[in-house]
């Protein structure tokens, strides 16, 4: 079972700065990590590989330094990494990003499954996973919370079988879980509930240090230039605001005086004033 995992390198969300002029994020000086929600996809991939064999390729689009994220994924247990990097990709929105990633995935050759995080913690869109599925006409399960079963048809045993390789999953919706059967190749975006990410191993770290990460771009990949970067992106960021986070609300401290009843009655008054009770 060959698996591809598109990941994203994101800034540590706690201290992100924006460039007011360009509306893009200032990445200098901020530590970059693998998007935390991608770790669940990586872990799920490694578990499937342990059970069904095959290889896992992680792929990302970003600056040359994004190979660090790929190496980290390899240290966890992924096999290969591919970096899409070049000026032509700068300013890509989710439409252009999913185009470039889908073309690179096609270039990788046969695969059975694409696993992606539900969304990235910086952009917060969750659109690139379904976008890749759309470009490649794959079946799609978003918000996947569980892999129930994988059916791989052994063609050598029964070459007359009309059955297809498939995966059965649960996906989390607003009021419960849907169970879906998807023929492979499929794309799943996964939520936290699906797995508990492992730490990189020493052996994995050693391997990741040595591994060569190829860089792909317009020079060595068949891409339609009109679909790339800012020019290929339908959307434009026209303004960035920094909303006020602090509210300066009332705070009553009852630790010393123990006047819990009084504090709670003031809270009830507050709720009444807002017509919430």
């Amino acid at each position: 079972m060959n698996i591809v995992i598109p990941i994203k390198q994101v800034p540590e969300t706690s201290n992100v700065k924006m460039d007011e002029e360009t509306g893009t994020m200032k990445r200098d000086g901020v530590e970059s990590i693998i998007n935390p929600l991608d770790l669940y996809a990586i872990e799920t991939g490694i578990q499937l590989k342990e059970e069904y064999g095959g290889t896992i390729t992680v792929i990302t689009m970003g600056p040359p330094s994004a190979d660090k994220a790929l190496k980290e994924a390899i240290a966890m247990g992924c096999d290969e990494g591919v970096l899409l990097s070049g000026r032509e990709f700068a300013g890509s929105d989710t439409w252009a990003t999913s185009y470039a990633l889908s073309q690179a995935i096609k270039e990788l050759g046969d695969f059975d499954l694409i696993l992606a995080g539900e969304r990235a913690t910086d952009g917060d869109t969750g659109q690139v996973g379904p976008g890749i599925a759309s470009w490649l006409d794959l079946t799609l399960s978003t918000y996947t919370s569980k892999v129930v079963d994988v059916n791989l048809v052994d063609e050598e045993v029964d070459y007359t079988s009309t059955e297809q390789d498939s995966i059965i999953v649960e996906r989390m919706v607003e009021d419960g879980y849907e169970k879906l059967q998807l023929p492979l190749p499929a794309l799943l975006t996964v939520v936290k509930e699906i797995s508990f990410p492992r730490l990189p191993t020493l052996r994995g770290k050693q391997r990741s240090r040595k591994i060569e990460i190829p860089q792909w771009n317009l020079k060595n990949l068949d891409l339609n230039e009109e679909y790339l970067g800012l020019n290929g992106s339908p959307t434009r960021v026209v303004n960035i605001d920094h909303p006020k986070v602090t509210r300066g609300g009332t705070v009553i401290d009852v630790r010393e005086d123990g006047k819990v009843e009084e504090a709670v009655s003031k809270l009830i008054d507050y709720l009444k004033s807002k017509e919430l009770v």
Partner: protein
Amino acid sequence: MEYNGVWTLGEARDGEIKEVSFELLSRGRKLADKLDEELVSLILGDDITDEQAEELIKSGADKVFLMNAPALKDFIAENYSNVIEDLIKEYKPEIILAAATSMGRTVMPYIAIKTDAGLTADCTELDIEEDTGNLLQTRPAIGGNILATIKSPNHRPQMATVRPHSTKPAEKNESRTGEIVHLKLDSSLLDGRVKKLGFRKNEGDGVNIQDADVIAAGGKGMKKGENFEMIRELAAFFDGAVGASRDAVDRDWISYPYQVGLSGKTVTPKLYFAVGISGAIQHLAGMKTSENIIAINEDPDADIFMVSDFGIVGDLFEIVPELNKQLAEEVK
């Protein structure tokens, strides 16, 4: 430009139109009025009656595009995408709004690729740019630390998903009239690859926290799972839902569907109680756009008090029972 009209993508389950469909109409009406164009509510399902479709008209739709077919009973991304893509190509709407739900956030990106359209996720504000008539889409990003305004100047349709509960459902006007257009499913559009095998409702109350007007959430300070009983009691006074921080979910005090925050759900209720939650940035990202935030925590330096409208510093095991007691008196 040949593209014209504002569409909202309604949602239904088991023949019931979901509340979020009416929220979208209040967004869509404002945009359609500014553009002086028609507002269409598109809804796919199995057994949605004309009577229900009328409700969409009373809530602001000029037309309802209603497509009923057994094959559309369940949301299957590939089927819905094919059908909607086909309708877009035929009718050429200028704007399409969907809810930022498990359906909207799945089908919209799938369609946006096929129709070469710009799509903005999880918007909290929508407006029309004067002079150009472009849709201005404002959305929180980076855990709610910024609000970005986005437009798609050269691509049509302009597509956006809208955060549930970020606006009130449109008020119903009983005398409003409109047209219900019954659309026929072209069965060649059915993809047929993915099969739905079943559905399992959430354990417990089954309340969806993203639909709730009021959420009472507990965190690490709750100390053990049984103590969530008082949080449930608090939520019940408001017919609200129970939520939790990551700490509480990771300790198995409550299950994952209740988790609020970066790796859980983003919620925008009218009232949010944060009980024994310190307010890690990952939690704040999921709830800080709530209208009213009440914090109860024993640490006066907890970040949750920075975002709260009303906070009490003290022992939650004294404060919450007292709150429940006084609320019980109010209800009486």
